[in-house]
């Protein structure tokens, strides 16, 4: 658990960080909270000769709710997400999900940007961002571009982000309707055995719109359009929920690990999704 030698950079602006990235190319990596990257370096599974710490870049921090759009700087910590009343009022699912990430010590340092950009299928925020249909802003040497969360994830630790780009902010429309984030884990600090993010809009007792995403049940987060579609137009009754669960099960592809075999994970995914739908509907 001793990393090999590396150079530590602590730029004060996005431009300065991009300059270091450009200078060192493949030898450099940016670090947000470091909860994934530092253990990988200690295990010598990640070789990072130049580590660029983004913590000093104040322009990457902050939460803004304006005109129904929520914008969150990439270096905003999970703790800041939890303690923002403005965010909790605009998108209560954010606080609910963030409280299920690790423990307070981790959340004081862990950031939303690191969580979504690392591409770890175990992280909670990517699935939630897909559920919210969030937009990620990436800044590189050629300027900025935007990518939808639903298009961002390619495989485990593989995303649409280029090596010379930094994910700078996340934005999404304040969700309408009932929201729920449901997660089963073995213990505090563990990744999900299965987790579900659900947003349901209710009009005249029927589901007007539904958004469903699952976490740690494939090598990427799983946005299940079919699961949502199965609910739309229904009264969210038992049959519709079962159809949604079936559709979701068709979209996930869990693998066996110490949390259990595939069969168990699929079962739990179904239970967790049912519970999330039930809770979201009760809040819709």
């Amino acid at each position, binding site marked *: *658990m*001793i990393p090999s030698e590396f150079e530590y950079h602590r730029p004060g602006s996005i431009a300065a960080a991009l300059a270091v990235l450009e200078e060192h190319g493949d030898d450099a990596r940016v670090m947000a909270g470091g909860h994934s990257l530092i253990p990988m370096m200690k295990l010598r599974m990640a070789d990072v000769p130049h580590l660029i710490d983004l913590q000093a870049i104040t322009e990457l921090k902050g939460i803004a709710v304006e005109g129904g759009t929520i914008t969150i700087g990439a270096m905003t910590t999970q703790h800041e997400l939890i303690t923002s009343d403005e965010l909790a009022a605009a998108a209560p699912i954010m606080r609910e999900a963030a409280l299920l990430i690790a423990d307070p010590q981790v959340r004081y340092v862990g950031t939303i940007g690191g969580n979504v950009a690392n591409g770890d299928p175990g992280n909670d925020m990517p699935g939630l961002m897909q559920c919210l249909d969030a937009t990620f802003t990436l800044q590189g040497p050629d300027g900025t571009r935007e990518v939808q969360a639903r298009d961002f994830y390619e495989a485990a630790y593989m995303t649409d982000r280029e090596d010379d780009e930094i994910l700078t902010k996340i934005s999404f429309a304040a969700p309408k309707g009932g929201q729920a984030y449901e997660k*089963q884990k073995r*213990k505090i600090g563990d990744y999900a055995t299965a987790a579900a993010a659900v947003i349901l809009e209710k009009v005249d007792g029927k589901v007007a719109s539904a958004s469903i995403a699952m976490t740690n049940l494939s090598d990427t987060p799983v946005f299940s359009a079919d699961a949502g579609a199965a609910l739309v137009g229904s009264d969210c009754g038992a049959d519709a929920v079962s159809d949604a669960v079936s559709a979701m099960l068709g979209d996930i592809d869990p693998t066996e690990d*110490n949390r*259990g075999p595939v069969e*168990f994970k699929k079962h739990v995914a179904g239970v967790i999704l049912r519970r999330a739908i039930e809770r979201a509907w009760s809040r819709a």
Partner: protein
Amino acid sequence: MKDLEDRQERIDNLKGMGCSRKRVEDARFTQGKGKYVDDVNLPGMLHGDFVRSPYAHARVKSINIDAAMALDGVVAVLTAKDLEPLALHWMPTLAGDKQMVLADGKVLFQGQEVAFVVAKDRYIAADAVELVEVEYEELPVLVDPFEALQSDIVLREDIKDEKEGAHGPRRHHNHIFLWEEGDKEATEQVLDEAEVVAEEMVYYHRTHPCPLEPCGSVASMDKINGKLTLWGTFQAPHVVRTVASLLSGIEEHNIRVISPDIGGGFGNKVGVYPGYVCSIVATIVTGQPVKWIEDRMENLMATAFARDYWMKGKISATKEGKITGLHCHVTADHGAFDACADPTKFPAGFFHICTGSYDIPVAYVGVDGVYTNKAPGGVAYRCSFRVTEAAYFIERMIEVLAMELNMDAAELRRINFIREDQFPYQSALGWEYDSGDYHSAWDKALAAVKYDELRAEQAQRVEDFKAGKTRKLLGIGLTHFTEIVGAGPVKNCDILGMGMFDSCEIRIHPTGSAIARLGTISQGQGHATTFAQILASEIGLSADSITIEEGDTDTAPYGLGTYGSRSTPVAGAATAMAGRKIRAKAQMIAAYLLEVHDNDLEWDVDRFVVKGAPERFKTMKDIAYAAYNQAIPGVEPGLEAVSYYDPPNMTYPFGAYICVMEIDVDTGEHEIRQFYALDDCGTRINPMVIEGQVHGGLTEALAIAMGQEIAYDDMGNCKTGTLMDFFIPTAVETPHYTTDHTETPSPHHPIGAKGVGESPNVGGVPAFSNAVHDAFRAFGLRQSHMPHDHWRIWKTANDLGLHG
């Protein structure tokens, strides 16, 4: 009345036995001021790190150290070839086997030590580990002990032709020993003729003590005066000194072993590890101090595991439920080397306490030790030697028998308990239980949890479940355990030939304060607090005026260390006995000072008083001063005493634990609604320390029962080498515990104390596990193996058809 109040005040001022004195150690621990091995930093100190095997079984074809040696700052890279001329490439284990210090031709488990890099700093050492090139040829792997006993694959080529092992004949090249106790023939006959027999395979999975602080050592050879100083995470520093002397040839007076503050041991720090040996060799070779500190993954993957017992049981009874016999065969997976930490004559520890709290007329136990491609160990993880396995076995067998008899498991226990009038009780497997009152403890426990109401609620829950009204089941986990601790009588207990006595040396200072040194070593048990309380009550000086010191072999008297809940039963007894020697001499001094005969004095809390003349007295403080400032005819100056205590018998703490658990059959999650723990540890020295011990032990039991394991895949890869997968409960997972007690003193112990540190692990594991089993009893579950993590509970429910 005033006299009585004065007397009570004097008793209170002593902070002696029975007082919930705050732990004196905590002032430094809570402020981060403890001094651990890794806090030892010496001028010119070098750092060691291991090259470890990625394979569970492989031949080592070659080791090339050139690139590592070429790295600036690397001082040495040791391999088995370098240790061989010193005869240190192998070392003896505590179990009569030998173990490779560094891979000698092959590796036998993943994480095995292959080479030891010594460098000027910790970072260079880690870099150099990457540069050592080892060529392996993979060999087929054995991770299943049953398969190992049938397989042609030879694990231990060094002893493959040896038919006789340390504990008798070996019947296969992967067989270590068969150890038997009890009357096999008579037991089989009883089983054959019994009205009811219950049979079950009970597996206690492999786990690990995982102390907060991993293992480490700092060795420093002073070549000028020929003295070796060794700081290390040792639960038995004196034995380490003796072993180091025997292995190195350095005379024992030239070795000083120091166990500084230790961040938890739980058995993990009893054995001798290659890191200790390599740091010693490296300091001798380089002439500079060498530090070795393992990391968490190394600790989990390569240092001593615990349990891994496959226990095949048969228990017989009359139709009314009176137990008539018990038969047990264990297949014990010992890993690559037999490095179990047990007294020499007991290769399965005290597993034959497995008749538990019950009066079982005839019994037999056979234990087969087996080699596999797993890490060596087999230590007592917060229990006396293999006692937690024994308790789990019998408490599961009782539950299975209750099912077979269609009987309430609490009632089945009650009608089979050893009765109070049967103590001292001779068990069918050879133990003499010192004292107990199981029925009183059991009744108190059942009343405390309102047992009958719980059963009624459970029955209703089953109805509701069947009617589709709930998806949660309710389990009531019962346990009545009997521990056996305080090893032990020297006549049958030794470690590497050293009799398992313990010791205390007391020196009273002229102003009436004292220092006492013991042969034990605290790893969090609070010895500095509680041993001072024993002494305070014995010699009448306040516990606040008594310093307790342990762990430095140059100053402390020889002792066998701290594990197996032996400190209070053995060293605590030595402390009391040494205290009584002090008091005996003090009585002579007081008699001289008061100008009366010794026999005219009586002891009263903190003073000797002339019988019938309470105004004439000398306090212990007065006496201490006199011991140093007056010439007393016939009495040597000073006030010191030493006691080496060889206990006449073990002590037998016991307890009744009840766990009430809700289980979600769909997700496999559980919630502990109530946990009641009644402990009887004999005389209680510090109720607050006892409660802390019980809380800690129960939390470790919770971990073991509900999620903690060392698991391997078919290739022998350890799947649980980090705390991401190895379950350590946080405050969130830990339930509230209700503690309670009865007090049945040990008749043979000077103060009647029995020891408590390990009881909660011994009794806790079956209580948690039985709760899980009990939740599914109505659906026919007889046995499902631990750990009861989410997916295994889900699988149990699924196999029982509870998912529709």
